[in-house]
């Protein structure tokens, strides 16, 4: 009987079933985004209190930890549900010229590692990604990175409650990061 309690301790690797559910969720989420099912993503895959972030990190020497001047973590994304909904609403306006013809985006999610979080029932999930974007006829880019997610069950279904995205490029080698990771 004590086995179950140990499995739920923060930092413990999740059981097989939970791992399977979490990994499946991430795959399903990636496909929903690939297929531009943004409203389904907002309404059925995110929690209402989601925090969705993409911070930038400076290229600094290992030994030089000093925070200089006004420097602070700059977030390319630092969105709550309302801001994410606003970004999605922009797709619906019909005036988003850059996405018409549509951009083709393919998300590859791997290296899924899930552990029970501090809050009972929540799971911390790390995953790596490759996001490939193809625009127009021959404009394309590939971005690599990592996500640290927080997942929580709402009405028996896993939902994304938090995401911190790390992009490996300091200088974004594409014109923008105007896509969900």
């Amino acid at each position: 009987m004590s086995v179950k309690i140990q499995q739920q301790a923060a930092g413990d690797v999740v059981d097989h079933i939970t791992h399977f559910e979490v990994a499946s969720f991430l795959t399903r989420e990636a496909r929903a985004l690939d297929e531009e099912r943004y409203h389904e993503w907002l309404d059925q895959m995110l929690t209402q209190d989601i925090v969705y972030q993409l911070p930038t990190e400076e290229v600094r020497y290992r030994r030089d930890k000093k925070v200089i001047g006004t420097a602070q973590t700059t977030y390319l994304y630092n969105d709550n549900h309302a801001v994410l909904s606003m970004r999605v609403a922009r797709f619906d306006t019909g005036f988003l010229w850059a996405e018409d013809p549509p951009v083709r985006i393919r998300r590859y999610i791997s290296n899924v590692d899930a552990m029970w979080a501090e809050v009972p029932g929540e799971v911390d999930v790390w995953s790596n990604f490759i996001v490939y974007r193809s625009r127009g006829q021959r404009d394309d880019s590939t971005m690599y990175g990592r996500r640290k997610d927080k997942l929580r069950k709402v009405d028996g279904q896993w939902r994304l409650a938090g995401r911190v995205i790390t992009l490996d490029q300091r200088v974004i080698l594409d014109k923008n990061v105007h896509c969900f990771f």
Partner: protein
Amino acid sequence: MKPINELIQQDGAIQDRSIYWDEDIYQKEMEHIFARCWLFLTHDSVIPETGDYQVTTMGEDNVIVARQKDGGLKAFVNSCTHRGNYVCFSEGGNARSFVCPYHGWAFGIDGELDDVPLEEQAYFNDIDKQSLGLQQVRVESYKGFIFGTFDLDAPSLVDYLGGMAWYIDSFMDVPGGMELIGPPMKSILNCNWKNPSENFIGDGYHVGWAHASALEIAGGALESMKGLNDYSPDSGLQVTVPEGHGFGVIWDAAAALHPGPPGIAYQKWLDQRSPIVREKLGKTREKFYNGHWDATIFPNCSFLYGTNTFKVWQPRGPRQIEVFTWTLVEKEMPEELQQMIHADNMLTFGTAGILESDDGENFENCTHANRGFATRQGRVYLGMARGRERTDAEMPGLVSDGWVNETSTRGMYRRWAELMQGTPWAKLSVTAKTDAYK
């Protein structure tokens, strides 16, 4: 390369398309513009303490700008004087020295050569270290904004800004001044550097069309512009000064791109500060303080005052730039307001910004359409409101009614042509003095 007077015609209204594509023209720009003009490096607020530094570029020259022990500033080329390697590989931080990883030559934060390994045993103490410091860059700052130039003959920074200084004082001269929040976001755009510079200096025209989707969802004061349906020339102004700088302003719209609570908080701040600005700088500049600006300091430093995005377009060849983006705030603003403005800047003009992404596509395509040989023989046109420029008793340079206008853009290309002809500083145009601008 065609003669300059064929590349730019009709007083800046016509551009030969080759200026956005050709390698030889780009190399001339590096020589006549980027190696001569004052170029934005960083801001006092970014490197306040001894040894604080940033690595940036002037044209394609990699430079380090560092705070000195006496509080002053030095900038120097990031390339070892022994075999040419970079001496700094971080983008900024705090340092006591810069040590080349190739042979260990150590340079001070002033760029002087301090230490050479095996100086006694291998050089037999026969090395003139004083003559082997890193190549120095001339540095000056204006209201905390730090610029550098490679040209020892260039006028002072304040003279280089010319009539633009009178205008930017509208917000740079507020009590406490301005500061930049960094570190900057950085991204690559495959466009010529002039495409974004001309967009920021005076392309009010694109706002309602290119950004229609963002205007619709963000709402606020600019929403009526969506689809270019509604606009009155009384709503703003464009300004160009002979030094090549310029801007467009929309009256009473500083907070327009901050919908919701941030906009309310920002408007409250503006209302509170306005009397101070009026007292110090007069009614006209109080009006500028409350306006929303799109501006470029020639050649490649642009900002939107109000939205408060601050950018440098670093050239990386004729068809590529690296974009640096900071947030511009008043130093005396409450921290909470600064953070709201910073967050809004990321959301609108950050690398994931909902307006930035529209612009990036347009800039790249405006450049790349010129890859076609026949296309490149043609010209592009900036003739909007031509001939309607006027001088003003108070405002320096030329002004023209309406922020949807191309007056300031033509001014940028007039300056471009003057510089590209290799005109010496003494013969370059300068802003005529007015009662207000002396």
